[in-house]
């Protein structure tokens, strides 16, 4: 089994090599995220070092004040006292200011990392092919980009601050302790051994749980997103109760994983405290003997005990944020997996420019299958000369949409090549490809936002007038104007605010505005009423005059504007000819056409 990309993502146990592979790629990702931030990182590191040093100096100053100040003051010498007091104040000030600086800079760092990561994941998901999206599901992609990124944000936001600060604090405390009283320092160092063992134990035990927790939360999100997307069907078919059970089960899984993680903490945490308190007691005992011996000052003993105690102070927070760390690193593992996925429809390495496409589309020996065992389009050749309008008809499931998806390069053919003006689509510059070929898909998806924004997807820098012209051309202008805010009306998520036919008109206006050399319309008028369809067809007649077009439609009225008709059956083009020819013949199309004519009024 492989763990490349998102494979094996749902597992929580990996073999050693797999683990190493995953860790290596998430480390590489982290490295590349932090690389541009080195300068800032150094500044923060400096701020942490100095501020921790300042904080750590506190007990030493108290010790100095007590040991030197009291005798000196008895001799009317104020200097040591004043020095201790002022120095203490000064360290506090420095510490405070530096911590504030640190928090600010680290927020900048963490936000920079996040935005970088967000952008990368977003871009990469957009680059990944439909094939990937169809199997990975949107819910999981969404969970990668929301809850996984949340986990990382938590670590960066709070976790890192306390983790790093705590660590520095501990190091300085240990150093100070070694300086003022080496034996106490040794006690502390000795306590690091059980500390290390305990931490390692925790790390090993918790890692699998954290991975499981990412998987469980992704499942939760998948279910949630699907319910909310299909809320009408959920209601209409009374799926609420069943969904609640299903969701309840997923919630329980997630809860269980979380509870197990927290349960580990309930052992880890007191373990830390126990080690710390033991170290304090030992320091006290040993130090006490030495004070009695006269080899140690009381003040130093106090400082040693305070330092030992303080050394363990940040441990609890560190443990809490070790949690964040583990959770974030599991999240990073998953995200790095997605980023490692290679699009199966990759951008060309050496793109060929095609500034102005003529619009000749050729299929040479093309074969296509969604799954290896089932050819949807057996091998075929086809040439669509520039400027030709093709009507692609055939029974449902014949493969019309699939053929269209090959032209617009949603998929690459399994064998053979599809080319535009002689350039293999796989080599064509993506920008030129998208500008030259536009497909209006069978499902008219609208984004939440205004009508104008939605149409402008066809041409982002279009002026409002251009947008209106496009809408007018497809006969959408009137209804848009009658919306509460005209072109600025929000269409709500998925265009829920407008009717199905209106959605199609908007999608259509979008394509009109994009003005491509090759236009593919997949059932673009299926939900329209006949008068609107009529308008659209009129618009098409002018729109398609000098461009290549593939029109997929079950309503054969489209055929009247086509130069050529292709009839598809089970993935094969069974008839090919001009409409008149085919209608006059005795083939499939003649039958279809007759049936269709009969179905008319």
């Amino acid at each position: 089994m492989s763990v490349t990309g998102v494979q094996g993502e749902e597992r929580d146990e990996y073999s050693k090599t797999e683990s190493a592979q995953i860790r290596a790629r998430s480390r590489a990702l982290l490295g590349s995220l932090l690389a541009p931030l080195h300068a800032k990182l150094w500044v923060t590191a400096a701020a942490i070092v100095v501020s921790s040093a300042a904080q750590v100096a506190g007990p030493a100053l108290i010790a100095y004040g007590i040991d030197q100040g009291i005798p000196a003051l008895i001799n009317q010498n104020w200097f040591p006292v004043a020095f201790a007091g002022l120095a203490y104040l000064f360290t506090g000030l420095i510490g405070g200011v530096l911590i504030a600086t640190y928090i600010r800079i680290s927020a900048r760092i963490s936000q920079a990392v996040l935005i970088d990561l967000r952008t990368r994941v977003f871009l990469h998901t957009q680059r990944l092919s439909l094939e990937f999206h169809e199997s990975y599901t949107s819910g999981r992609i969404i969970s990668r980009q929301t809850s996984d990124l949340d986990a990382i944000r938590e670590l960066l936001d709070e976790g890192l601050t306390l983790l790093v600060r705590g660590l520095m604090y501990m190091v300085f405390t240990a150093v100070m302790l070694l300086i003022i009283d080496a034996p106490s320092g040794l006690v502390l160092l000795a306590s690091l051994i059980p500390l290390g063992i305990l931490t390692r134990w925790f790390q090993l035990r918790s890692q699998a749980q954290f991975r499981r927790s990412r998987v469980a939360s992704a499942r939760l999100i998948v279910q949630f997103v699907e319910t909310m997307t299909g809320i009408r069907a959920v209601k209409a078919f009374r799926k609420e109760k069943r969904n609640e059970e299903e969701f309840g089960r997923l919630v329980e899984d997630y809860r269980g994983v979380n509870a197990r993680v927290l349960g580990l903490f309930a052992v880890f945490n007191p373990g830390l405290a126990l080690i710390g308190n033991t170290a304090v007691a030992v320091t006290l005992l040993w130090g006490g003997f030495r004070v009695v011996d006269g080899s140690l000052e009381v003040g130093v003993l106090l400082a040693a005990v305070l330092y030992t105690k303080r050394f363990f102070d940040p441990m609890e927070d560190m443990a809490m944020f070790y949690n964040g760390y583990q959770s974030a690193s599991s999240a990073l593992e998953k995200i790095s997996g997605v980023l490692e996925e290679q699009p199966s429809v990759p951008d060309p390495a050496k793109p060929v420019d095609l500034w102005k496409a003529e619009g000749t589309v050729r299929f040479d020996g093309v074969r296509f299958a969604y799954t290896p065992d089932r050819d949807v389009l057996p091998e075929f050749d086809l040439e669509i000369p520039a400027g030709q309008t093709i009507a692609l008809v055939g029974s449902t499931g014949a493969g019309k949409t699939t053929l269209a998806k090959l032209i617009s390069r949603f998929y690459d053919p399994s064998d053979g090549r599809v080319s535009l003006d002689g350039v293999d689509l796989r080599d064509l510059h993506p920008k030129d490809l998208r500008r030259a070929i536009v497909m209006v898909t069978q499902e008219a998806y609208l984004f939440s936002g205004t009508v104008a924004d939605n149409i402008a997807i066809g041409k982002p820098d279009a002026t409002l007038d251009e947008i209106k012209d496009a809408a007018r051309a497809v006969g959408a202008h009137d209804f848009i104007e009658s919306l509460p805010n005209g072109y600025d009306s929000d269409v709500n998520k998925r265009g829920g605010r407008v009717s199905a036919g209106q959605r199609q008109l908007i999608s259509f206006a979008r394509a009109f505005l994009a003005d491509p050399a090759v236009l593919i319309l997949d059932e673009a008028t299926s939900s329209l009423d006949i008068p609107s369809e009529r308008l659209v067809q009129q618009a098409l007649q002018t729109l398609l005059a000098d461009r290549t077009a593939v029109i997929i439609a079950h309503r054969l009225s489209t055929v009247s504007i086509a130069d050529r008709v292709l009839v598809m059956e089970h993935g094969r083009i069974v008839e090919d000819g001009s409409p008149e020819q085919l209608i006059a013949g005795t083939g499939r199309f003649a039958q279809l056409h007759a049936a269709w004519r009969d179905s008319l009024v």
Partner: protein
Amino acid sequence: MRALWRLRAFVGPAMPAFVGSMLAALVAQLIALTIPQVLQQIVDGPLANRDAAAVVPLALLVFGLGAVEALLYGLRRWLVVGPGTRVEARMRNTLYAKLQDLPVNFHDKWPSGQLLSRAVSDLGLIRRWLSFGLVLTVVNVIVIIVGVGILMSMNWLLGLIFLVCSLPLWWAGYRFEGRYSEKSRLSQDQAGDLATAVEESVHGIRVLKAFGRGKHALSNFRSQAESLRSTEIAKARLDADIWVWIMVVPAIALSICLTVGIWLAAQGQLSVGELVAFFATATVLAWPIESIGFMLAFALDARTATDRFFDIIDSENTIVDPAEPRSLDRPRGELAFTDVHFRYQDSPERFGDLLDGIDLVLTPGETMALVGLTGCGKTTLTALTTRLYDVTGGSVTLDGVDVRAFKREELRTHIAMAFEDATLFSASVRENVLLGRPELAGDDPSVRAEADRVLEQALAIAQAAFAYDLPEGLDTRVGEEGMSLSGGQRQRLALARAVAAKPAVLVLDDPLSALDVTTEAKVEAALREILASTTALIVAHRPSTVMLADRVALMEDGRITAVGTHSELLRESEHYRFVITSLEEDARLAATVEDPGPDPAPETASQTEQTIAAEFEAEARAERATREEATR
């Protein structure tokens, strides 16, 4: 903090655990506070007397106290593990159930990412706060109070200095609260918006790909992410400010205490041991005090999350089950619309009702086609039958009983729908088709046999036998929203789903739009059989679909303006002819009746096209320049 207080309803049975956890933490902290006292004993006793033997029991006492403290730490966490996570789970389930229960118009209004971010990150935050934040806050506050008390009792002067000098902290905290809350809300809302952007970029990926607009979507996403970033940075700035206070104020207090304390000790008013104990105690207080800033921010974030949670829980559900539901055993299937008025909630005053007095009666077993122009309100009308929306006036009745008098669940067993868009779920074909028949879900052989029979029949009617040929037959998962099927396949499964539910009334919204003519004819033939015994309301755009119907209702300007058979309406209604007459028919008529003058629409179109083409040229040129620049 009232919002947080409301959480107690969800904490409920877990309350003792939380209190226990707090107690454990409190005792642990108090023990930590007694350790300095023991220290004082050691310094002033054995160490002053140089008595090595006496050190041992006291050191052991310190160890013992430390061990108990550690145990209590464990207890503190262990107690809340179960309850804490259960509270989160309970809240999550409640939220989900509430969302499913809320009417469609709520979902129309709310961006999906906002719901998601509430259900996932907000609730996680609340759980963490309840289990750690709340416990630690309460404990730390008590520890600080007790600690200051101890300081006062050790030496009132030093204690008082410490206390007075700490007062500005409260003021800083108060100011912080106001500002931080605002940012916290903003940032959580922005995170929700970002989630929405993510969701749409994934769901709309086909459009983005078709137009090559990935980059464009990215720039929108970026700008949202940037605003979130700046909110977060503003939050961090506030956080940094409060940290300055929290670090500096105690430092001032302690430095004064140090100076005064040494002076007092030099005067002999204070023993060295007491001074040591004072500072040891003050040190124990250092972390609780420093944690104030963090805890405060944590609590404020949790409060925001709670507010956001209750935003939804408090949303009023306008479509609920009646207090005393009516019930029908075997509805005959008479569906009647009486003076039905409806308007969408966001439609402005100046607009009339979308449905403006619909009167229509479907007699039992009758098939009625609903015909009207795009956007005239057909889908809206169908949604009223199962109460996806409620009428704003008039009534819809089933067998004479107002649909609002049924329980929603029952109503929706009597009436089944097929929507314009198929909305399949990522489950097997079997599960999708049997969605309306939960009683057929089991693995019991007899149930299974019945399920297979129903499936076969439904698939046969919808001409969806292709499902048997899918890679894993009826157990093939259809992929998200059925995207691994062709458009017509999806639509047929959705039709089969409605048919399989065996309702008294079938409501089909443009159910054949994605089918080819031959398949359409077959579906029609099969449908006609079941439609003989089932009342059906079928939205139709094509004459072929209309043929299915016994009668046709024509919708115009929010009313039913004509009802009759297809041929009657063709004869009598001009609007009907306009709506349903096919293109060719029309062309033929046009050719005979009048000379078709030049159409204005194409002209505008070609003009537009010319400008667009010109601009395209310019754009291409500009881009070529930049691209060449880049390669050079």
